[in-house]
């Protein structure tokens, strides 16, 4: 009897210890998020003022803002999304609609999943070899192309997943009233999957707006205002990289402020994107 009881007690104890460890693990995860966000708010907020959004990046040891970097980031992100999204949506459409059971789809899905997690610095090297070397100079358009290559796999994945969730009865209803396939896709499937596809695009924006590695040797950086797509262009992440590693206090402060701006943008976008799909799940 006593052995059974002690066995029971030791199993209970082991369970309690392991479950406590699991709770601690969750605590560690949450605490780390809080630590990072706390440090960002603490160090970044003190540098937020109007000049950040109205002045150019300063020379070393001077006060200034991040206007040209913010502008460059927005421009390259927009071009990246505009180039990458249609390709991604179309590829996802093929995989979910026309070629759902074809071998090509299986291969593309596998390769796309690898592209999705491939190191972004490799994409930077690729675009360097593809565009910067033949053109002979760094350019904003090369940076935008690098970003669009990162957009494509994200959009392909969500588009395919979301279209696969659309009930076939809807498509059959469309076909039954005589609509050709592409009309069914456009007016029925896309419409039913819209919030999911938009979520994918938002997540893609969130992903590329913080990307640094693919911009380092495509768009490079630019200390001055430039709207020329054929010339190097500043971006927030590249500016943060340069300023944070510099010995100047003003630059480091601007780096923290820029980091805060990026993080709030990215987190805001991903929470918004999640709320779009979350609402649909609840319904």
């Amino acid at each position: 009897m006593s052995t059974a009881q002690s066995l029971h007690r030791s199993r209970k104890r082991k369970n309690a210890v392991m479950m406590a460890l699991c709770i601690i693990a969750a605590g560690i995860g949450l605490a780390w998020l809080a630590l990072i966000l706390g440090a960002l708010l603490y160090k970044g907020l003190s540098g937020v003022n109007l000049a950040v959004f109205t002045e150019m990046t300063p020379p070393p040891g001077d006060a200034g803002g991040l206007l040209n970097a913010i502008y460059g980031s927005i421009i390259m992100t927009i071009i990246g999304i505009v180039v990458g999204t249609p390709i991604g949506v179309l590829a996802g459409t093929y995989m979910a609609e026309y070629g759902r059971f074809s071998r090509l789809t299986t291969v593309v899905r596998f390769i796309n999943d690898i592209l999705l997690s491939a190191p972004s610095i490799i994409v930077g090297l690729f675009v360097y070899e593809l565009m910067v070397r033949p053109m002979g100079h760094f350019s904003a358009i090369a940076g935008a192309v690098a970003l669009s290559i990162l957009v494509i796999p994200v959009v392909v994945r969500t588009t395919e997943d979301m279209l696969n969730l659309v009930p076939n009865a809807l498509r059959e209803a469309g076909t039954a009233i005589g609509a050709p396939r592409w009309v069914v896709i456009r007016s029925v499937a896309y419409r039913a999957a819209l919030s999911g596809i938009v979520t994918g695009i938002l997540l893609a924006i969130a992903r590329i707006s913080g990307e640094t590695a693919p911009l380092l040797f495509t768009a490079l950086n630019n200390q001055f205002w430039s709207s020329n797509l054929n010339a190097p262009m500043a971006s927030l992440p590249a500016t943060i990289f340069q300023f944070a590693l510099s010995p100047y206090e003003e630059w480091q402060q601007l780096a923290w402020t820029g980091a805060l701006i990026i993080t709030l943008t990215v987190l805001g976008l991903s929470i918004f994107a999640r709320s779009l799909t979350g609402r649909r799940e609840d319904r």
Partner: protein
Amino acid sequence: MTAVSEAATSSAMRTREATVRRFAVTDMVFRAATRASAILVLVLLGGVAISLIAGSWEALSKFGFSFLTTESWNPVTENFGALAPIYGTIVTSAIAILIAVPIGIGIAVFLTELCPRPLRRPIGIAVELLAGIPSIIYGIWGLFVFAPFLQTTIQPFIISIFHGIPGLSSLFAGPPYGIGLLTSSLILAIMVLPFITSITKDVFDTVPAVLKESAYGIGCTTWEVTRRVVIPYTRVGIMGGVMLGLGRALGETMAVTFVIGNAHRISASLFAPGTTISATIANEFTEADGALYTSSLVALGLILFIITFIILALARYMLLRIDSRTGA
């Protein structure tokens, strides 16, 4: 009267036929456009491979296989070897995975078994937000907050503990720089944690309730159910998640670049500065003068591409296996 209506009908027929034909053409064009986009995804990956091979050709043909086994990295004498970055990449990623896997599985157990239902979604999202934070943020945080903290508190403590113990004392040899291999590993661990957690949680959710209930029914504790039923059932999926995390850690660039120290040497101590493949490329690519220097950096990129491709392909293969099982 009848003639007029017949003419109207036949013209209606003609427009209908034309419309149908137009529809067929548009459909074909649309189909071709979607197919071309799908093929473009394949072309992209092929293009990456070809451009990396072409870019690294000069370095690889000059150094040959010894590129992989040489530690020296000297831009002045133009003698390049990839051993130090490869060592740094593998060591930091391996330590990161060793730290992140138990914590990730712990969080997944917490979320699926322990967490009160209303808290599940918020906590799950919070952990996934860690994945959304751009890597440069981890870098700046690691450099200005985490590394100084390690330098002043944890590292001197560990050095004093292991001082004089053979093996461990050289693994944790001073001086405490703050930055270095171990700091990079810790930052990487935080970064891959959300990937491992969310995949582990997803595969835990695929365990049939009947299996768990029958284990609970014969009196198992939550831990025993997790250890004996849930983990064995989902082993392949967990491995897939771990490999996916490993792929991320191997290729992670910006966070590591900030805190690794960029030193081309192999040190026994985990506190010593080192370098990784991606950090070397990020730090030196724009400053590289000379075709051979650039080519050697691209060759590093090719090595990273091959390693991550294999790891990620294995990860996907394992996740596919668990998908097909739940689909059946």
